[in-house]
C-alpha cells in the first residue's frame, strides 16, 4: 500500500529561482534564507519518496481567466515548465505518475471534490522553485502529481475547503494499492502583497502564529476566511491555503521535523515547514 511520509511546505518566490540560476546562494542577502534548506533535504533523502504531490497556485502560465478551475489535478506523463515572461530560466520537464493521478482524481470525485483533470499542464515557478530547493541535483528519479489551486480570481476556495481537500488526498493515498512512498509539498506564502498602495505588507506576528498552528492546530488556521487572510497576510499571503492542503493530508499527530523563517526574500516573508507523518 502507498504511504504518505510527510509534508514539506515552502515559499516559492521567483527571486529564489533567479538566485539558484545565478549561483549566489552564499551571498549575504541569500545565505540566511538558503540556510534553512539542508535539513529539509536531509529529511527527504531519508524519507525517500517516489512521488511528490505538489500543491501550488498557477500565476498565469497555464491558466487564464477564460477557464479558471478552483482545483486542478495533473494527469500527465510529463509536466513542462515554460517562459513566464519575466526572465526566469526554464527547467527540464518533470515526470508524472498518471496512474496515481487518476487514482487521486477518482478518489476525490468519490469524496465529492469535483476537480478538473489536466492531461497537459505547464507548471510555473510555484512548482519548480520548491522542487529546485528541495531536490537541487535532481539525481534521484522523482515522479510528481501537480495539484493547482486558484488564487488569482476571487472567490478562492476557503481555507477550510482546502484543509478538507488535503484530508481527502490523504485518504486517496492511503487507499492506493501500489507499494509507493509519497510526500506532499505545499508551496507559497508566507505574508506578502505585491499589488496596491499596500504593496510590501508583511506580518511577522501572524506568520509565526501560522508556523506554530500549522503543526499543532491547523483547524485554527482553516477557520479564517480568505478575506481574513488577505487582511492579515496580504493579497498573496492567501497562498498559505496550499500549506493547509498539505497539512490536511497528514495524520492529526504529525510531528514537526524542522522549520525556518526569514524576512525578506524579495517582497515576501519566506517560510519552511517539514512535517513527518505519524508512523
Amino acid at each position, binding site marked *: 500500500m502507498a504511504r504518505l511520509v510527510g509534508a514539506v511546505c515552502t515559499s516559492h518566490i521567483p*527571486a529564489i529561482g533567479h538566485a539558484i540560476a545565478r549561483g549566489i546562494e552564499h551571498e549575504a542577502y541569500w545565505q540566511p534564507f538558503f540556510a534553512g534548506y539542508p535539513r529539509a533535504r536531509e529529511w527527504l533523502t531519508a524519507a525517500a519518496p517516489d512521488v511528490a504531490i505538489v500543491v501550488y497556485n498557477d*500565476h*498565469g*502560465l497555464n491558466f*487564464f*481567466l*477564460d477557464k479558471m478551475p478552483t482545483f486542478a489535478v495533473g494527469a500527465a506523463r510529463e509536466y513542462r515548465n*515554460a*517562459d*513566464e*515572461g*519575466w*526572465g526566469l530560466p526554464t527547467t527540464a520537464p518533470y515526470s508524472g505518475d498518471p496512474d496515481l493521478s487518476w487514482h487521486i482524481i477518482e478518489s476525490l470525485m468519490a469524496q465529492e471534490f469535483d476537480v478538473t483533470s489536466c492531461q497537459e499542464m505547464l507548471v510555473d515557478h510555484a512548482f519548480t522553485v520548491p522542487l529546485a530547493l528541495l531536490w537541487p541535483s535532481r539525481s534521484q528519479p522523482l515522479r510528481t502529481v501537480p495539484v493547482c489551486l486558484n488564487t*488569482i*480570481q*476571487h*472567490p478562492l476556495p476557503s481555507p477550510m475547503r482546502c484543509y478538507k481537500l488535503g484530508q481527502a488526498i490523504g485518504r486517496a493515498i492511503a487507499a492506493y494499492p501500489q507499494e509507493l512512498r509519497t510526500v506532499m509539498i505545499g508551496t507559497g506564502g508566507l505574508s506578502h*502583497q*505585491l*499589488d*496596491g*498602495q*499596500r*504593496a*510590501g505588507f*508583511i506580518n*511577522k506576528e501572524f506568520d509565526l502564529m501560522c508556523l506554530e498552528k500549522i503543526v499543532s492546530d491547523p483547524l485554527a488556521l482553516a477557520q479564517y476566511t480568505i*478575506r481574513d487572510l*488577505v*487582511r492579515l497576510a496580504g*493579497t498573496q499571503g492567501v497562498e498559505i491555503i496550499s500549506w493547509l492542503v498539505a497539512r490536511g493530508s497528514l495524520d492529526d499527530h504529525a510531528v514537526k521535523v524542522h522549520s525556518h523563517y*526569514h*524576512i*525578506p526574500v*524579495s*517582497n515576501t*516573508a519566506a517560510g519552511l515547514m517539514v512535517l513527518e507523518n505519524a508512523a
Partner: protein
Amino acid sequence: MTPTINPQNRPVTAAVETPPCVIPGTYLFDGTLALKGYALNKMCYSFNEAANRAAFLEDEDGYCARFGLNDEQRDAVRRRDVLALLEAGGNVYYLAKFTGIFGLGVQDIGAQQTGMSVEAFRAKLQAAAT
C-alpha cells in the same frame, strides 16, 4: 401552530453574498474586476511568449488595439502605471508579465505603487523583520 424554521430550508442568499472588500490599498480581484480587465489581462497573458513581447515593443498601439483595450487601459499601459492598471481591471500576476518587458520586477512596481524609491521600499521590507 407556530411554524418552525428548518435550517435546511433557509435561503442561501445571505451565505453566498459577500460585501465589497474594504482593505485599504488592496484590490481584491473578483468577478467585477475580472470582467472589467479581461482584454488587458488577456494581452498581458500573451506576454508569456517572447515573440509577443517583441511584437508589443515593435508596435504598441497596434498590439493594444488587437486585444481591444479600452481608453482607460490604453492610457495606463502607455504610462506603465501599475495602480492605474489595477484600477482598469488588471491582475498583478498578468501585469507582472507586462512590467517584465521593461525589466521592472516586483520591488520596482512595489516602489512605484507606494510612491517610494526602490531603496526605501527595500528598507521597508527589511524593517518588517524586526
